[in-house]
């Protein structure tokens, strides 16, 4: 494994920063603004994708810019885990951009400049934190992401959305400061913040130090990863426009929390150390509790987006659980589930948005017969729900299979059982929607009425991706190989 100097990582970040500036400058020209977004999204994906080959070969593009603090640089390094996350985010930004344009036009929303500009900034920071080579750089992008999402949450400007914005900030900034302590403490203990597979802590660290450090990281990231009881900002944040919920609250922001846990457990503290202090058990139990409770809470939601939000909470904890099991299968599954859950959940949110734009319906109880009006949308919806429930041949099956196998292989069958039960619960709260949509007769018979192409095509694409990753886990983007390589990096002598 070796690194080589490259401008690609920084270019990937800067593309959307430039877009951010241009979008603000094109305040009065919607077409130019949207063109900028699309071009930036595509070029960003291109840049990220061009690095996949290097990373698969074990050559990490890297870049040191300048010092942030004596001894700590603003440094980027693209490794397997990072590129998985970056690739997912930049890929889905393309579809979301098209979808947003359709959505915003469909609802003639105001303040679109602010919307697209914040979006671009969010993506910059997401890619930035994916590529960060050390904790301080990571934190920098992590906090920018928190702040940049705030205008999106409060986009509507209604009292309700302002309240949600407050809650969002209260939770995430609290998480942020706790994380900052964790980082400072790490620096104090180990004298470095550079990520390294297997951890950077010196051998002599005491149990108390490690326990404190681990708890700080868990709680700090736990806010963004929406681990119960730190989750309640996520359902509230569903007041944001649907593209925001789709990309940020199902992919970028929450996954940033999970990705932070990947870094903290795998690259800072190290799985071996964590296993020694019994941290895996704590994490796994928390994750299991979250999975079960969130799934049960999802049943009670009549609002479609809220149900999706609780489902997100549960699925994030799939990943956390996978990390907590400290075995190669489970880690492999966890990393893949970051991707798979992303494409499936974004499909569901896109569908919810399409329904809202066409019919202004938000509640599940009003969706009788919607499948007849919007057959394509609801078919995509069905595919994604099957995936989330873990049914082949959709993407969710692959990652879930690995997670369950990891649990059983490691002799921790109980967590495997939790995952299986959760699959049933998923089916329990998703399939009634599908049933309602296709098998109940609508209250009015208006015939087919699909969403505009700008929204429908993204839905088709993400649903297609869900199938693709289910049938060919390594297809086109090499997510499977990347995840496997990442794990074997970590596993070097550990597992």
């Amino acid at each position, binding site marked *: 494994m070796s690194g080589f100097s490259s401008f690609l990582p920084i270019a990937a970040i800067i593309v959307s920063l430039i877009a951010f500036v241009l979008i603000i400058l094109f305040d009065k020209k919607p077409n130019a603004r949207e063109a900028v977004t699309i071009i930036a999204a595509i070029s960003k994906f291109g840049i990220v994708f061009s690095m996949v080959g290097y990373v698969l070969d074990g050559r990490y593009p890297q870049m040191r810019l300048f010092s942030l603090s*004596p001894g700590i640089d603003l440094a980027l390094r693209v490794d397997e885990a990072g590129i998985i996350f970056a690739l997912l985010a930049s890929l889905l930004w393309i579809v979301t951009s098209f979808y947003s344009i359709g959505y915003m036009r469909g609802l003639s929303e105001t303040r679109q400049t602010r919307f697209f500009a914040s979006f671009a900034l969010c993506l910059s920071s997401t890619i930035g934190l994916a590529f960060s080579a050390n904790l301080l750089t990571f934190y920098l992008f992590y906090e920018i992401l928190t702040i940049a999402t705030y205008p999106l949450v409060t986009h509507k400007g209604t009292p309700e959305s302002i309240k949600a914005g407050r809650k969002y900030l209260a939770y995430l900034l609290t998480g942020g400061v706790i994380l900052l302590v964790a980082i400072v403490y790490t620096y104090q203990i180990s004298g470095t913040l550079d990520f390294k597979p297997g951890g950077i802590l010196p051998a002599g660290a005491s149990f108390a130090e490690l326990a404190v450090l681990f708890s700080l990281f868990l709680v700090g990231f736990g806010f963004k990863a929406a681990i119960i009881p730190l989750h309640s900002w996520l359902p509230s944040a569903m007041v944001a426009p649907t593209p925001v919920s789709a990309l940020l609250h199902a992919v970028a922001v929450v996954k940033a929390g999970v990705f932070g846990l990947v870094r903290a457990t795998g690259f800072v503290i190290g799985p071996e150390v964590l296993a020694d202090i019994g941290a895996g058990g704590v994490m796994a139990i928390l994750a299991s509790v979250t999975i079960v409770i969130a799934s049960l809470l999802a049943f009670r939601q009549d609002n479609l987006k809220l149900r999706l939000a609780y489902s997100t909470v549960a699925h994030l904890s799939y990943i956390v659980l996978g990390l907590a099991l400290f075995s190669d299968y489970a880690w492999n599954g966890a990393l893949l589930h970051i991707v798979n859950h992303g494409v499936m959940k974004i499909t569901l949110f896109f569908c919810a948005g399409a329904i809202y734009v066409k019919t202004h319906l938000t509640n599940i109880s009003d969706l009788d017969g919607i499948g007849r009006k919007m057959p394509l949308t609801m078919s995509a919806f069905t595919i994604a729900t099957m995936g989330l429930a873990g049914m082949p041949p959709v993407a969710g099956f692959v990652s879930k299979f690995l997670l369950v196998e990891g649990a059983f292989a490691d002799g921790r069958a109980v967590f495997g059982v939790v995952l299986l039960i959760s699959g049933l619960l998923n089916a329990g709260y998703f399939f009634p929607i599908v049933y309602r949509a296709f098998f109940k007769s609508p209250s009015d018979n208006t015939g087919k009425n699909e969403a505009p192409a700008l929204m429908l095509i993204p839905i088709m694409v993400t649903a297609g991706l869900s199938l693709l990753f289910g049938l060919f886990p390594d297809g086109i983007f090499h997510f499977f190989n990347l995840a496997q390589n990442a794990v074997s990096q970590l596993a070097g002598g550990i597992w």
Partner: protein
Amino acid sequence: MIEHLPALIPITLILFAFIAGVLGVMQFKLSRNVAMLGALAAFVLSVTGTIQVLQTGPMHYSFGSWPPPYGIEFVLDTLSAFMVLVITGIGSILLMFPTKPGFMIDEQKGATVYTVVLMLMAGLCGMVLAGDLFNLYVFLEISSLSTFALISLGGGKAAVASFRYLIMASIGGCFYLLGVGFIYFSVGSVNMADVLQLLPAVYDSPSVIGGAILMVTGLCVKMALFPLHTWLPDSDTYAPPVVAAFSAAVQIEVSAYVIIRLILNVFSPEFIIGLTPITDIIAWISAAGIIIASILAVAQQNFRRMLAYSSVAQIAYVGLGIGLANPLGIVGGIFHIMAHSLMKGSLFLIAGGIRHHTGIWNINDFQGLGRRMPWTIGAFTIAAMGMIGIPPTAGFFSKWYLLLGSIEGDQWVFVAVILISSLLNAVYFFRIIEKAFSPPAESTASVNKTGELPKRMLAPILILAIGTLIVGALNVLVVNELIMPVVEGL
């Protein structure tokens, strides 16, 4: 020529103060331009001085060629270079702000206002450069006297605030002077370097300890360190915006600097940290001050008063850094001087600009302002992020060093204090951001008609706000070159 630099910085300011005053009587515009020229000249000299110091080490300048300890000495070392950079740099930017909204006076009446401002800057530079304890007092009083006059420009309420400040500042100044007396009669010298040499012989003398405590207490009043801050909220609320910015962004920081100077170069850290509880007390009252002042800031409806309480909290960050008394803590404290002066300067100018432009001073009336004044509110947002401590603003990095210092000193309480305070900062700054970016309400007609601030007001605001980002990104340069050499001895 170059060896005269330490003296030239204040002398330039005083000279230009005189010229600006004379010209001001004849033609006001000229006075303003001359004053800006003077401030800029001082800034250029400071930059030159800083470069010189970095290349050849500290510069000592003896007035009238009387060698110290007999003569008066000015010292430009990295720490004082850092401070004169802040004073003259921020000062020059603040002076760009137009006169009428900046000083709340009509041009005809304000003939001498720029003289006083330059004298204030000269006083502050003198405090920073003075190599002996007594001249420091004289310059401290020069800066105080200028401030009294400037604050009172804000009208009746400001005069009351200024009077109060005068009483408190005089007590502070006199305590300091009394302390100087104690030290002088103990060691027979007021030259800082000399005192440092002579003190170890009399470390355990009660009058030395008493003198140190008196001097530090006096300076704590001047720096508005909780609970001696009572004068600051009023004066910063009613003073003209530029003056409030000077006071909150530069003046109280200079007093904090003097405390650091006393600890490092006069009494020596072994004495202050080892033999007196001074740093511990400063640390704990700063910690209390950070929390209490932040809570008070949350409670304010008046934008300016909120900023004033926020200054009390922020200067306590510097106090906390001093109190931690380990290298990283002091680095954090000193760096926060620069960070805070940029952020707070910008915020006070924004407050003044908005007040002058729209008449709004109450936070509740900010609704919809973001749409009307995107640049102003954008600058506000950057400065607010700095106050909260979001990377990559300068405010984050001072917090970072302070946290490093606290954890190194095993002071988990202070860690908690810093974190809680950033959350409280978030509460009171996001309250405004939230209002400003909400859709305008029907009732606030004055907002709906208003436009962006004029360019002349916007320029200094934006320079300061962008400055917080640049200084944040370049913090290592500042820390490594200017601050680290000072604290290495700790």
